[in-house]
């Protein structure tokens, strides 16, 4: 082969001419991006009743308790809230959202299809540990539709503020990007890096990727749907959205990358039938009265031979003495709980910042989106509500729950009153769906920054966009080591990929493996 191009060179070329999303797509195809993973096999040595205190009932805590209980450990879980699950929280008829200063009780119709996953909501195919427990605990799963090309893109700066179909936007963007890349292949610098055959292959792909015409120009595509006809009569193409118009919105960065599997946002995701908390209750129901609710931890003292945890229940302070402790209490809350952790451990705990996230949802009187040929997926809005999700389950049913806002930075919703939050989601939503306001029943909102016993969403480690600093890596390692071989910090705060159930479960597996090794090495 003459003039060979390494994979890295090829990606750099694409980076120079095609931008980051092209590199990401190509990277995935070439195997640089995360692909499949295998769930760890947990095989703990059977134990004759060593006592374990588990603080919190997030999925890392429940995983720990389940595995240890199966191996014969004597587990007690202390949960400050009235419910298990932490940020795996499903809202349905009767659910209380215990947000400080904004208590809400859900009064939607009592129907198994009508729920809102207020925290974790999607399971990617590569999150093998989550899937492993769903299988083991018989949690029924269904497909979650993460991207619908018939959903909308709305930005006041685009198309006079009128929403544009995702497919109109993305087909045109794909067309123009392909056209530019094809032109750039005429550039001698790029061309000289490729053999003739490679160039031909690339051009062929670009022609197909962008639906370019014989002159390698984008002149519209029926991929965006037909302007007219298309079934009994020949279909006509819709008008092309000019590149300059496409660039009036910055939503392209969202619209064009919804289907990147590596970050957990693939086209095919999953959800438990009936709500994400089915996973939580599958664990919790099996653990039964090992879980103590409304039992906030008031002190954690690591001793030479174990851990002593004080907690409050029914106004009385109780002491739980255990051989080991697994703790998934958010680090920023541990900062307000007396403990005797080493200084560097405390410093690391205090370093992690609490993430902000805001979600809202309402029960829709009718499944109005289906009348617009939408059966799932995400509408992107250039406003703080950011996203509108349509339920992919119970198609053609009577009602459905629409996710009406998902802001991962939280915006200023934390400080807004419930009335203002609702007006905000209606005001922006009706730019997309004219009958939105009339369709919305009993909106519910959740600002994780203000949730009781939580005060935050996914933990944030790195302070700089460029990645983790050396100091941050060191602090992370400090927290991964058990204090005195007795106290383990678990949860997505103890991982380098927060906000995912998979990470939380793997943090539990990591700690369990360490514990098992210690127990096995103890003198018989």
């Amino acid at each position, binding site marked *: 082969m003459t003039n060979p191009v390494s994979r890295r060179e090829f990606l750099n070329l694409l980076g120079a001419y095609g931008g980051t999303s092209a590199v990401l797509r190509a990277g995935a195809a070439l195997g640089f991006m995360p692909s499949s993973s295998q769930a760890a096999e947990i095989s703990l040595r059977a134990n004759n009743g060593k006592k374990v205190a588990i603080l919190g009932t997030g999925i890392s805590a429940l995983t720990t308790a389940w595995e240890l209980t199966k191996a014969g450990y004597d587990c007690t879980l202390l949960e400050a809230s009235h419910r298990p699950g932490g940020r795996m929280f499903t809202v349905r008829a009767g659910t209380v959202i215990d947000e400080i200063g904004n208590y809400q009780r859900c009064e939607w119709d009592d129907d198994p299809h009508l729920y809102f996953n207020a925290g974790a909501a999607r399971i990617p195919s590569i999150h093998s540990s989550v899937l492993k427990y769903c299988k083991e605990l*018989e949690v029924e799963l269904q497909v979650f539709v993460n991207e619908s090309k018939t959903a909308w893109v709305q930005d006041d700066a685009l198309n006079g503020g009128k929403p544009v179909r995702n497919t109109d936007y993305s087909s045109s963007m794909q067309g123009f990007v392909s056209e530019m890349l094809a032109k750039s292949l005429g550039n001698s610098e790029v061309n000289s890096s490729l053999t003739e055959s490679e160039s031909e292959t690339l051009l062929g792909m670009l022609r197909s990727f962008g639906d370019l015409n014989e002159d390698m120009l984008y002149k519209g595509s029926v991929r965006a749907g037909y302007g007219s006809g298309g079934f009994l009569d020949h279909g006509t193409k819709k008008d092309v959205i000019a590149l300059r118009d496409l660039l009036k919105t910055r939503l392209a960065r969202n619209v064009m990358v919804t289907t990147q599997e590596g970050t957990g946002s693939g086209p095919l995701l999953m959800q438990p039938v009936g709500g994400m908390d089915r996973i939580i209750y599958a664990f919790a129901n099996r653990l039964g009265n090992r879980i103590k609710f409304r039992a906030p931890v008031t002190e954690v003292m690591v001793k030479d031979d174990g851990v002593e945890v004080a907690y409050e229940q029914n106004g009385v302070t109780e002491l739980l003495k255990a051989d080991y402790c697994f703790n998934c209490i958010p680090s*920023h809350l541990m*900062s307000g709980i007396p403990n005797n952790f080493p200084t560097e451990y405390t410093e690391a705990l205090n370093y992690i910042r609490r993430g902000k996230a805001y979600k809202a949802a309402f029960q829709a009187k009718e499944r109005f989106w289906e009348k617009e040929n939408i059966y799932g997926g995400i509408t992107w809005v250039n406003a703080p509500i950011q996203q509108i999700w349509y339920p992919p389950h119970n198609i053609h049913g009577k009602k459905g729950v629409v996710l009406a806002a998902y802001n991962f930075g939280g915006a200023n919703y934390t400080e807004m009153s419930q009335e203002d939050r609702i007006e905000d989601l209606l005001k922006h939503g009706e730019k997309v769906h004219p009958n939105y306001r009339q369709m919305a029943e009993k909106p519910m909102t959740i600002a994780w920054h203000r949730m009781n016993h939580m005060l935050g969403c996914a933990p944030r480690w790195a302070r700089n966009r460029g990645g983790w600093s050396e100091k941050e890596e060191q602090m992370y390692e400090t927290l991964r080591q058990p204090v005195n071989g007795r106290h383990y910090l678990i949860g997505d705060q103890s991982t380098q990929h927060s906000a995912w159930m998979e990470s939380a479960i793997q943090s539990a597996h990591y700690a369990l493996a360490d514990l098992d090794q210690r127990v096995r090495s103890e003198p018989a």
Partner: protein
Amino acid sequence: MKKLLTATTLILSALCLPAVQAAEGDVGVEAAMDDRYCTTCHGVEGIGNMAVEAPRLAGMESWYLKRQLENFRAGIRGTHEQDTQGIAMRPMATKLSGESIEDIVAWVGSWEYVPAQATIEGDINQGRSAFQSCAACHGANAEGNEALGAPALAGQNDWYMVTQLKNFRAGFRGAHPEDTYGSQMLSMSKALGDDRAVINVVSYINTLVK
């Protein structure tokens, strides 16, 4: 052996459970919720929480706490757009009834005063001389003076006092026309020339015991 048998029994009985039970209410029961949320942010028995920037309440005078809760509720405090921490606090107070405030004040009053640990290091000598003007209202040992409406400072989280002094100096706190005591503090805080002076005076307060 008995324990092992128990564990085995557990697993077997667990496997017999239906895969999915009705979620809410099975293992967690909603009880009447009061407004005693303070410890989530302010720490166990109000010891303060640096990670969420919520100051110590343990040992705070009842009259001062009541005034601040009422100020937050009325928008006299926590409404300036630069008062990040005050803005975070305000929604917690807006829904409180007079009765709830009384209940919270009594609850907080039941917590033991334990001085906070120092987290900053400034020039204590410089701070001591700057503190003379503070002492007129807050007391020579920063023990507070109810008659003048000046709270105790000794034992309070130093990071909190630094933030508040900076906020007073910048007019983020105390600028509301109805914030009588805050406006006094706003003008007094101008005596501290810069952020360094703030650190120094708070470092000195760290040496005082209520």
